[in-house]
């Protein structure tokens, strides 16, 4: 038993070391991104279900985009609040006729509008069907070659679409994920954001977590061809690929689901066998993260449920149809270490009370884990700085002091998320718990599909 633990732990350590050194040695100091003259057309799809509080945030990003060949499609997924009227009043929406591709099914469309102020912006008003359904509707009416999916609470960085464009110049790239940053981790004008760490602990924890997850983990996973989730908050796809995988599946983890479907497509279709998924670290979007423990718990439990749902849904496809790398990353790191391991880990304090003999081994494993994550925190800051995200000296000290504290406090919350999410999935796999936005209209449509459209599974 102990031997098995040590072997698994050894593999874990090796993966963590890869996460440390691949980004450290491969990321060079940021060269300014080149704006290519040749712009591929990009359709940005923003599903929205009861997003009146935040829907206008995304507009701010769109207005400032330094890109010309794009369109934005808001998909109102049967909101019961003022989402629709807000967009109407800000965009001067006019009814318009568009022809769908008729390749993926989705719920009925009530009306399609085009903005009179900014003709690149469209709105699809449809019957409620959940986030996946809304995305599918958006894809159906998208006219451009590339699709970017964006959460309603996310703001695109002005240069983000240029970066997506650059990444997709390579014909083999069929999908990619951008870098999601936390809005609360920045101060200043939207066009000149500076990283800031002046915020509460629970947000600081997420800021560091996102930075590490993207700059170290996603970076390395993309090198290893084993990205298992393109964050729904900001993903980019060739439209044809989305048609070829038959669009999104209705599940709480639709972003991990589509990522795995694309992997399966690569492994099982001749046409796509040389295709890859890319991580596009310079394509940035800003999203607001949960600011209370309760919201955070709800968000992470939802992610965990989505993950478990994907594991079960794809159970017959591992290795043969998904390939070794993706399967190993998903089953070993995410399922075994991330999920299954949480249960015995939570048992450790109890076990130590019963069998105190091996407490030094527990101390050893804990110290090693803590050391690795603290070191990852440091390396993350170096890599982030090379991408141009630099803290001021004073703030940096704060971050450095916070890292060790976070490792042994907030990090343990992960156990709670994973365990409760898994158990809740098993107990009742059909009832997704959805965070209600404050100020939401209480008049709900009959039998709504409670699909929260923002706060996708990010990391």
């Amino acid at each position, binding site marked *: *038993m*102990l*031997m098995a633990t*040590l072997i698994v732990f050894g593999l874990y350590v090796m993966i963590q070391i890869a996460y*440390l*050194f691949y980004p*450290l*040695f491969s990321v*060079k*100091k940021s060269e300014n991104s080149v704006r290519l003259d040749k712009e591929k057309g990009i359709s940005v799809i923003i599903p929205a279900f009861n997003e009146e509080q935040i829907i206008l945030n995304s507009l701010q990003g769109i207005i400032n985009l330094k890109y010309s060949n794009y369109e934005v499609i808001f998909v109102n997924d049967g909101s019961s609040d003022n989402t629709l009227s807000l967009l109407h009043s800000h965009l001067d929406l006019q009814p318009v006729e568009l022809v769908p591709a008729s390749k993926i099914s989705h719920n009925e469309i009530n009306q399609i509008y085009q903005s009179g102020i900014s003709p690149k912006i469209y709105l699809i008003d449809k019957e409620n069907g959940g986030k996946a359904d809304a995305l599918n509707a958006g894809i159906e009416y998208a006219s451009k070659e590339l699709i970017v999916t964006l959460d309603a609470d996310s703001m695109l960085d002005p240069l983000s679409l240029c970066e997506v464009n650059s990444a997709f110049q390579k014909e083999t790239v069929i999908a990619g994920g951008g870098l999601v940053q936390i809005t609360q981790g920045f101060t200043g004008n939207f066009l000149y954001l500076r990283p800031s760490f002046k915020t509460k602990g629970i947000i600081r924890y997420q800021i560091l977590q996102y930075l590490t997850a993207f700059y170290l983990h996603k970076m390395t996973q993309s090198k290893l061809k084993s990205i298992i989730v393109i964050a729904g908050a900001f993903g980019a796809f060739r439209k044809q690929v989305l048609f070829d995988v038959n669009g999104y599946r209705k599940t709480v983890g639709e972003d991990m689901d589509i990522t795995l479907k694309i992997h399966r497509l690569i492994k099982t279709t001749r046409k796509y066998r040389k295709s890859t998924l890319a991580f596009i670290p310079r394509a940035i979007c800003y999203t607001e993260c949960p600011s209370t423990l309760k919201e955070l718990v709800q968000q992470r439990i939802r992610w965990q449920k989505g993950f478990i749902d994907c594991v079960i849904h794809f159970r017959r496809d591992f290795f043969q149809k998904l390939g070794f790398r993706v399967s190993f990353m998903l089953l070993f790191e995410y399922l075994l270490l991330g999920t299954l391991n949480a249960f015995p880990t939570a048992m450790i304090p109890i076990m130590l009370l019963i069998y105190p*003999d*091996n407490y*030094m*081994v527990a*101390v*050893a494993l804990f*110290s*090693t884990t803590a*050391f690795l994550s603290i*070191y990852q925190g*440091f*390396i993350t800051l*170096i890599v982030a700085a*090379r991408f141009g995200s630099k803290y001021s000296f004073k703030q940096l000290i704060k971050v450095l002091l916070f890292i060790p504290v976070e490792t042994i406090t907030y990090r343990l919350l992960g156990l709670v998320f994973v365990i409760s999410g898994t158990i809740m999935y098993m107990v009742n796999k059909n009832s997704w718990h959805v965070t209600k936005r404050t100020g939401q209209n209480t008049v709900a449509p009959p039998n709504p599909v409670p699909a929260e459209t923002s706060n996708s599974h990010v990391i």
Partner: protein
Amino acid sequence: MKKELLINLLFTFVFFFSFTMLITFFADDVTEALQYNDLFPKDENFELASCQQWTRDVRSFPLKDYEKAKSVPVLMYHRIIDEKDLDENLYEEDGSIVSTVVLKENFTEQMKLLKREEYTTLTLRELELFINGKLDVPKNSIVLTFDDGFKDNAYEAYPVLKENDFTAASFVITGSITKNEKDYKPGTFQYLSVHDLKNSCDVFEFESHTYNFHQRMKDGTPFLIGKTDKDAEADIRASIVNLDGSKQAFASPYGGFDDGNIQLFKDLGFNMAFTVVPGDVSRGTNIYEIPRKEIKPETTIEEYKQIIGLQ
């Protein structure tokens, strides 16, 4: 560019340096824990048969009547530790040394005394024959026994015994014998390795102290009493396999056994069994309840003389 590479190398160096430190720091604990959980396989043996052959040989002592022993002291030791290697784990709360430890200095003095007084150390087989009235042994006969099979027996007691041409019985918890050799760390809690057994088998005769029953139930009852006879039998059988079938003697952990156990010792074919009850061993002593006198850390040489019947 160059600065970047320097930073990378610096961080890499610091990482591997700290990581190595971390691993080195915990390496011993982890290996110990690994071996702690790893009992010696039940179906393998220590391969000591050839070097334990001497324990079967019975000497004959040409003795005049007045030279024959009426009783033979059987002494019980556990650990022999050099005074300089004592650490806080080996002291009780009241500041005395834990009762299973005899200081090497005292042990050496005791062995010198035995040598000076021309004592003969008997094998267990010889003791059995003496009890059964089939063998006469000289007056200054003695049986030395060591319980549990601590590693210090091979490193501290063995050279002293060897130097004085003495032999002793060692009751080992066979499951605790380690397959892999580990460095001897004086004063720490280590059991004999197979390698140690082989190195000291010309002085020690190894017998069973159970396979893995040197434990107590939650209420403190020794396993032999608390567990079922069936479990006890399976455990002791494993120890016999480890000892390559040797069934000359058995010693119960903590001296705890019941009538059912005695029947079991007989059924399994043990020739004799030892207790921890102090007393003399003479002709007709119950062969399955042989008393032993424990030597303690505080036993003075004068007391020792009394124990062995020299005064």
